[in-house]
């Protein structure tokens, strides 16, 4: 073996406190080191050329660059040696700047430590093996899970860029939460007016395939080559025939809860969520359908002009291949009824959630936009809003801020005045106002001053019914006194949480999530739309609470990342990954158990036994499996156990 050692001066950055010339000389006494040099700036043009020259002249087969942090220049020097025909992974760096010269002002001390750092690097270099990056071809289709505004935005961006997109949406229509909203803050423009055209775009775009009423069941494969099983739920209606005429819904005799209207008023067993649904197709909720429950009825079948009803329909499953996956599963309203017994736990009719109120305000909602008391349908005179229900509340395990409630409460307060008249008393109980977006603070001010909404700082401790009113008891912490307001209607700014089933989906996709089920980004700052599983991206509230502008921005960001990824025909995967030496594998499967990416799999050998095998393209090279394998038969290339042990021994050599 022939190792070359290059001890960088880095101007005076290193040479100032480390005797680089001395180290270069001493390096020649190390086993296998046949060449050393101490360039002024190793990373500079001449410095790199010097390394390349030495590789050729001295027939070096390993190079140790003793300079700055590998985070700084590992890539640089890998390219350097590669340029001289050497495998890039045969270069090792010794960090004698950040970890030495810059923190040890004493020359003698610094030089001594640098010497040991170099020795360790040489010891590691001896263990290095040439590694070769794997290339995999890339499927250019993208799967988007969730058809809310995030999914829609990403889909359109991607489709416009020429990529084929499939949206899988679990409801019968796309649109998500935003489709339920009335107006949107801070501009008070109509939610449907801006969303529905985009929904229609989606359905008409030649590059977009909509798969509504569907769910992702199984995902296998890896970046560029995912295989996904998608289950399409049986709607009991043949969607190829259904024209969305709504006749069946009108004639259906069976009532069913209307989830789109957040349960305010019932719909029918056969339903179309809302008039602008895309696709606009009917589906039967079999649990409520008279035919399915009693075996008699079939009214819809009789009335359907298209003959689309099909009571025998079964779930179907399709398997598709994708190159990238975008998760945009959005949100769900915090189920406050289960947690806030002090607010009546859902038993007081005139206490409703913010999203229910959106439906109430909405002109296409159950009450045509008429705000009314749920108990008697009367116009409310006093409306009280309570913020932070299920947000920033440790006691219900929701310590995070839902980020949109302050704003939508202000919006709803304003709309209340608008719908019910300026003389309506509107109170908002708040803890802090978070209005950080563009024009948001101004909006709040307007609501307070222009519309006379009374903001009370404090928590509401109890809601109870008295004389047909909802008594709101709380403290005004600014005044420091108890307040009690008899309200006609109380709207809870219930917080938001990840969509139902987000955790399971994350597990299916092998991405991580926090304890609430929000999916985790690759890095909070630097990789905000990627996940740690290559090829899986995030958009919208599934990652963290955010409002529509932020959602859309993130969705477009994601789209551009996906485009960037799929612009390549081949993907290079890092070769610094785990490999199983199957000779010694005892099939204990602990590696499979612990790998965060499900990279190891059971592989059947010719003799019928099973041994572990790491799928190269899935492995991210963390090495958790390596430290877990009891027989140490998995090696992490580039960080082998032998290399680590050799470094340990090298450090302690003088100790022995």
């Amino acid at each position: 073996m022939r190792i070359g050692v290059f001890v960088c001066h880095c101007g005076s950055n290193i040479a100032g406190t480390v005797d680089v010339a001395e180290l270069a000389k001493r390096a020649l006494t190390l086993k296998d080191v046949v060449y050393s040099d101490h360039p002024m700036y190793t990373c500079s043009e001449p410095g790199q050329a010097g390394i390349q020259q030495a590789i050729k002249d001295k027939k070096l087969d390993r190079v140790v660059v003793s300079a700055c942090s590998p985070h700084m220049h590992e890539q640089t020097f890998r390219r350097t040696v590669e340029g001289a025909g050497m495998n890039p992974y045969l270069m090792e760096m010794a960090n004698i700047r950040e970890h030495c010269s810059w923190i040890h002002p004493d020359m003698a001390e610094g030089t001594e430590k640098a010497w040991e750092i170099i020795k360790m690097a040489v010891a590691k270099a001896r263990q290095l093996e040439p590694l070769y990056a794997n290339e995999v071809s890339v499927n250019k289709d993208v799967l988007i899970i969730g058809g809310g505004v995030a999914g829609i935005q990403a889909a359109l961006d991607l489709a416009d860029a020429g990529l084929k997109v499939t949206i899988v949406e679990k409801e019968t229509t796309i649109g998500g939460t935003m489709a339920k909203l009335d107006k949107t803050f801070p501009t008070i423009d109509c939610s449907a007016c801006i969303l529905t055209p985009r929904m229609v775009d989606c359905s008409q775009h030649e590059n977009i395939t909509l798969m509504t009423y569907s769910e992702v069941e199984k995902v296998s494969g890896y970046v560029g080559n995912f295989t996904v099983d998608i289950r399409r739920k049986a709607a009991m209606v043949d969607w190829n025939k259904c024209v969305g005429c709504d006749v069946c819904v009108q004639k259906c005799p069976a009532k069913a809860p209307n989830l789109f209207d957040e349960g305010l008023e019932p719909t029918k067993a056969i339903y179309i969520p809302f008039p602008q649904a895309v696709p606009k197709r009917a589906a039967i909720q079999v649990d409520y359908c008279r035919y399915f429950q009693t075996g008699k009825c079939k009214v819809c079948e009789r009335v359907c002009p298209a003959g689309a009803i099909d009571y025998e329909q079964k779930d179907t499953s399709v398997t598709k291949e994708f190159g990238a996956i975008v998760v945009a599963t959005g949100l769900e309203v915090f189920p406050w009824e289960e947690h806030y017994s002090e607010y009546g736990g859902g038993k007081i009719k005139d206490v409703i959630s913010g999203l229910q109120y959106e439906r109430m305000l909405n002109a296409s909602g159950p009450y045509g936009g008429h705000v009314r008391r749920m108990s008697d349908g009367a116009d409310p005179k006093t409306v009280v809003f309570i913020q932070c229900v299920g947000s920033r509340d440790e006691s219900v395990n929701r310590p995070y801020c839902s980020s949109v409630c302050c704003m939508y409460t202000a919006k709803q307060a304003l709309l209340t005045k608008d719908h019910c008249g300026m003389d309506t008393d509107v109170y908002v109980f708040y803890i802090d106002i978070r209005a950080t977006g563009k024009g948001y603070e101004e909006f709040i001010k307007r609501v307070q001053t222009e519309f006379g909404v009374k903001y009370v700082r404090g928590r509401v401790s109890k809601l109870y019914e008295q004389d047909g009113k909802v008594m709101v008891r709380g403290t005004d912490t600014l005044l420091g006194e108890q307040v009690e307001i008899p309200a006609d209607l109380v709207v809870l700014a219930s917080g938001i949480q990840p969509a139902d089933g987000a955790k399971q989906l994350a597990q299916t996709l092998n991405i991580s999530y926090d304890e609430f089920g929000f999916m985790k980004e690759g890095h909070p700052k630097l990789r905000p739309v990627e996940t740690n599983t290559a090829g899986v991206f995030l958009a919208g509230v599934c990652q963290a609470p955010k409002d529509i502008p932020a959602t859309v921005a993130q969705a477009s960001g994601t789209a551009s990342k996906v485009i960037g990824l799929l612009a390549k025909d081949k993907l290079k995967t890092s070769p610094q990954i785990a490999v199983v030496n199957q000779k010694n594998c005892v099939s204990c499967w602990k590696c499979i158990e612990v790998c965060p990416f499900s990279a190891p799999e059971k592989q059947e050998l010719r003799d019928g036994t099973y041994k572990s095998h790491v799928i190269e393209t899935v492995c991210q090279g963390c090495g958790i499996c390596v430290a877990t394998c009891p027989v140490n038969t998995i090696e992490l290339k580039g960080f082998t156990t032998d290399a680590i042990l050799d470094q340990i021994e090298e450090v302690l050599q003088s100790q022995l």
Partner: protein
Amino acid sequence: MSRQDHIREFAANALTEKRVDYFIGWKQGYNSSEMIPAFVTDPAEADQLVWNPLCHHNLVTFIKRNMPEPADAKVGLCVKGCDSRTLVALLQEGLVDKDRLYVVGVPCDGIVDRRKLEKMFSSEITEIEFPERGKVKVTTRAGETKELDQKDVELIGCAHCRYPNPLYSDNTAGPLEKEPDREETKPDWSALEQYESLSDDVKQALLEKIYATCIRCFACIHVCPVCVCWDKCVNRSRQPELVSQKVGPKENLLFQMVHMFHVAGRCPSCGACDRACPVEIPLGLLHAKMNKEIYDMFGFEPGVKLDEKPVFQVFDLKDQFGD
């Protein structure tokens, strides 16, 4: 019917009816003071099987990776309370095939520590009888005979056994033994206290002395039922060479630490390793401490619940240690 008769009858039936190809139990060794594992294939030999407080072998060892051949053989097996926990530990990880096993649980009221006995007599022990429950009658080669209380000569773990009744079995040999109230009482680690109270230097010196005697025969590892890699043990590997093949107190102790980490969360302190060590190294000292700390960290007892996973193969976001 005594437990022993139950085992014999069960084994004979299972073999006759071909429900199992082998039945693993205990039988007498070269004299009545030694019980050894028995592999019975012929129903007629079932009456060799015995059950008494000398049946210390943890038979789960024989089914871990070197299950009797052929690979689809069905095996009948006796387990005591502590043995059953090692079986559960293997089942938790899917390392043995439940469907090939027929497990006879043997409720146990304590196993005699033969080594403790040996140290009480100057002459070789040639005969041990159990005239009544709780009594041990020992006869030596020199002809000396002595009757002892079983409780006085039991294995160290038996006094505080929390699971005298097998936790996994298809059939139970006789009535259950009385169990401690596990809600009320915590595991007892008083045996460790004396060691724990020593100073660091004294501990080091003591360990050095103890581990200097290890001959690296690997008996401890090979009898350990939950060690699944015995034939590929990393302690014998040169690539990577985690532990040198040299013998010396450092290496020997490191080698035990490797074993310890590999069984952490899976070893219920069944004591098989301790009893197998020819030079009588108190290996239980490590395992008991490990289990104590694991209990302290996770409230976890290895090999108790079938649906649990060993604690080091999983994690919990809410783990409370570290800074």
